[in-house]
């Protein structure tokens, strides 16, 4: 016999919701009055009210709702009106979610749904919540499904924690992935790690690319193999680890060894890896292959050094100016020797003006104009004179200027090579003068030869006679010209040389020859005007050949005496007096019966020497032989062998 429980008696517990269920007017609802509820339902309600999990009972067939205190926050403003209503009424927006689940559980199925969002009211505020719930059938005594029990488990906090953890993990994975990508794709960089003793632990593709070993070949190997034998012998790898461990980092900038034995220049750093307990866990090495850069820098240094050596060794002035300011960017040391000014002095103040001041005023405007033309893009040779500031010495400079263009073809710098051309210019002037002189002498000589040939022809009885005499005269001309051609610039022929050359050409010396006596007496080194030498030589030639043919040298017992001396003539002028005297032979003297024989030799002496040399001559044929006195003016500074500038003659 079942004892009815008074309505005010049941449910006896259950907090606020127990109270509300007890006092609710159930009689007008599909469930009927509380007293009519079956025991199975009452038990289910007691269990629900006692549960700490939010729990909702859905009682069929009308769908009446009961819930416990724990479920109140899930209902929000729907509480307490929700009690005794249907789910469709209290959560209309979620009908599509609830209905299938309820239908399945009403059909006898237990449904589990995890982590579904569900609004929840906390402290009067609606917030997002997450719930896992289980919906299962509530059966009465005969096993009929009388309703559905829905238990909520609030997973909001756990889910949030999980989400945070997932996010952190994702970020970590992301970061690791990025690092991995960097490490593995930086082919110029070797980024790898070792254990505390230096054994290689990681070896990404970049390390393989830089050093040549594959990961299989080097993992577990000492990092020392990447050092050169010399560095290994010096203990560099150990020292590097020691430094990195004690200071937190060690530079590793040096040549390293590759697998194939070639070397690679690494610019890198070694850092220690420490654990949370600060214990050393290993090292990371990051290094860039800068071999190419290294080689380029070395080549650049080499190139700079080469240019410096070139500039410093050059005896020409190498210079480079900024095209805009014309200030010197470079000027070689030869400047100091050529211009006679230190480079420091040149580079002080306005450099263009400083340089221009060194240039001869007559050439300054041209030199500056040339500099401007080079700046405008022209290449040209500029020749100008400079005056060395201290000594005042003038020098000729040949400056070859040219523009240096940038990549866009604009004149970025102007440069040049300044050559001290003083010697060349002087030599050139002298050569030009000499060529003119030579041409003049040659033409004059031909004119003389032409005149001589006509005179000789006129005085010759036969062709044979002409051949002998003309030949001898040409020889005499040749001799004197050969003497002239051997002269150093500005020097002159001495009388004794001229006489000696003529006499010795005929085998005549001042010793006994052909049984004749020859005496030559006079001071050596009396210099003759070069313009007078040729005619003088011809005269001496005629005297000599006459003596050989008819005079003192033609007969035994003949005697030739040539004496000469220097005479003062007025205050400044000196004269040379030559006395040619033949004795010891019988000749027909000039007298009224025998008028003087007018040979060409005598003609030259009596006419040519006065005409051309301003000489005074006295030619006499006495019974003893020829006696000829020639007095020739010398230039006022006749004496010595000093290099007096000789006058040309025309």
């Amino acid at each position, binding site marked *: 016999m079942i004892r009815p429980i008074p309505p005010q008696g049941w449910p006896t517990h259950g907090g606020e919701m127990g109270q509300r269920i007890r006092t609710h007017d159930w009689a007008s609802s599909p469930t009927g009055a509380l007293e009519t509820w079956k025991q199975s339902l009452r038990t289910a309600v007691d269990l629900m009210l006692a549960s700490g999990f939010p729990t909702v009972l859905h009682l069929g067939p009308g769908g009446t709702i009961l819930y416990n205190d724990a479920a109140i926050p899930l209902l929000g403003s729907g509480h307490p009106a929700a009690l005794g209503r249907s789910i469709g009424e209290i959560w209309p927006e979620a009908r599509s979610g609830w209905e299938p689940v309820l239908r399945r559980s009403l059909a006898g199925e237990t449904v589990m749904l995890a982590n579904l969002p569900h609004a929840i009211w906390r402290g009067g505020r609606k917030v997002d919540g997450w719930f896992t719930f289980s919906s299962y059938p509530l059966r009465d005594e005969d096993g009929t499904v009388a309703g559905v029990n829905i238990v909520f488990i609030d997973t909001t906090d756990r889910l949030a924690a999980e989400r945070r953890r997932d996010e952190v993990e994702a970020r970590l994975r992301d970061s690791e992935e990025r690092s991995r990508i960097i490490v593995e794709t930086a082919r110029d960089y070797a980024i790898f790690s070792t254990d505390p003793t230096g054994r290689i632990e990681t070896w990404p593709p970049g390390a393989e690319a830089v050093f040549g070993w594959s990961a299989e070949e080097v993992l577990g190997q000492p990092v020392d193999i990447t050092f050169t034998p010399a560095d290994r012998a010096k203990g560099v790898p150990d020292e590097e680890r020691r430094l990195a461990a004690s200071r937190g980092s060690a530079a590793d900038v040096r040549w390293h060894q590759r697998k194939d034995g070639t070397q690679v220049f690494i610019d890198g750093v070694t850092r220690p890896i420490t654990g949370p307990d600060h214990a050393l866990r290993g090292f990371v090495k990051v290094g860039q292959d800068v071999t190419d850069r290294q080689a380029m820098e070395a080549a650049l240094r080499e190139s700079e050094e080469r240019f410096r050596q070139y500039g410093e060794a050059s005896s020409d002035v190498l210079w480079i100016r900024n095209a805009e300011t014309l200030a010197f960017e470079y000027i070689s040391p030869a400047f100091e020797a050529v211009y006679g000014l230190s480079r420091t002095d040149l580079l002080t103040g306005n450099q263009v003006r400083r340089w221009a001041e060194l240039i001869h005023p007559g050439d300054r405007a041209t030199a500056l104009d040339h500099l401007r033309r080079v700046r405008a893009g022209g290449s040209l040779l500029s020749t100008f004179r400079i005056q060395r500031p201290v000594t005042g010495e003038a020098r000729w400079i040949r400056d070859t200027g040219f523009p240096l263009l940038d990549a866009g073809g604009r004149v970025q710098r102007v440069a040049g090579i300044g050559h001290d051309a003083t010697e060349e210019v002087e030599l050139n002037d002298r050569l030009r003068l000499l060529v*003119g002189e030579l*041409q*003049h*002498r*040659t*033409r*004059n000589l*031909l*004119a*003389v*030869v*032409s*005149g*001589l040939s*006509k*005179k000789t022809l006129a005085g010759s009885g036969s062709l044979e006679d002409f051949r002998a005499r003309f030949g001898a005269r040409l020889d005499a001309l040749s001799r004197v010209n050969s003497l002239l051609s051997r002269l150093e610039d500005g020097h002159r022929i001495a009388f004794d040389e001229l006489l000696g050359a003529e006499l010795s050409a005929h085998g005549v010396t001042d010793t006994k020859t052909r049984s004749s006596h020859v005496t030559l007496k006079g001071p050596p080194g009396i210099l003759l*005007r070069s*313009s007078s030498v040729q*005619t003088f030589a*011809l005269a001496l030639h005629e005297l000599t050949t006459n003596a050989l043919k008819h005079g003192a040298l033609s007969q035994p017992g003949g005697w030739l005496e040539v004496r000469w001396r220097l005479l003062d003539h007025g205050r400044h002028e000196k004269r040379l007096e030559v006395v040619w005297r033949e004795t010891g032979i019988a000749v027909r003297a000039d007298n009224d019966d025998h008028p003087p024989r007018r040979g060409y030799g005598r003609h*030259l002496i009596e*006419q*040519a020497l006065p*005409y*051309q040399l301003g000489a005074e001559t006295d030619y006499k044929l006495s019974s003893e032989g020829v006696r000829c006195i020639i007095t020739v003016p010398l230039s006022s500074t006749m004496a010595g062998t000093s290099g007096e500038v000789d*006058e*040309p*003659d*025309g």
Partner: protein
Amino acid sequence: MLVVEDDFVVAEDLQDELEQQGAEVLGPVATVEAALSLLESGPLPERAILDVNLRGTMVFPVADALRGRGIPFVFVTGYDHAALPAAYAGVSCCEKPTDMPALVRLLMA
């Protein structure tokens, strides 16, 4: 015909050639001074042959004196014609050694 030439052999040769052509030779003289004094003392020549360089002295004072008197002249020189000063650029010039027929043609022109 005045001949100014400092080399005796050449001067004598010129004189012979000119005389053979029927000319009467005044001089020859070897210096500027001698030539000028000949012009001063007269008689004046109709024409003149001047060697340009007389032992280092240029014959130009003689040339100027001849110009002043309206006497035509030719130069004879061992140098290039181009070496003459511009003032005498128009003067006929014979280069040494002298081509006598050419010189005579020049003088008679």
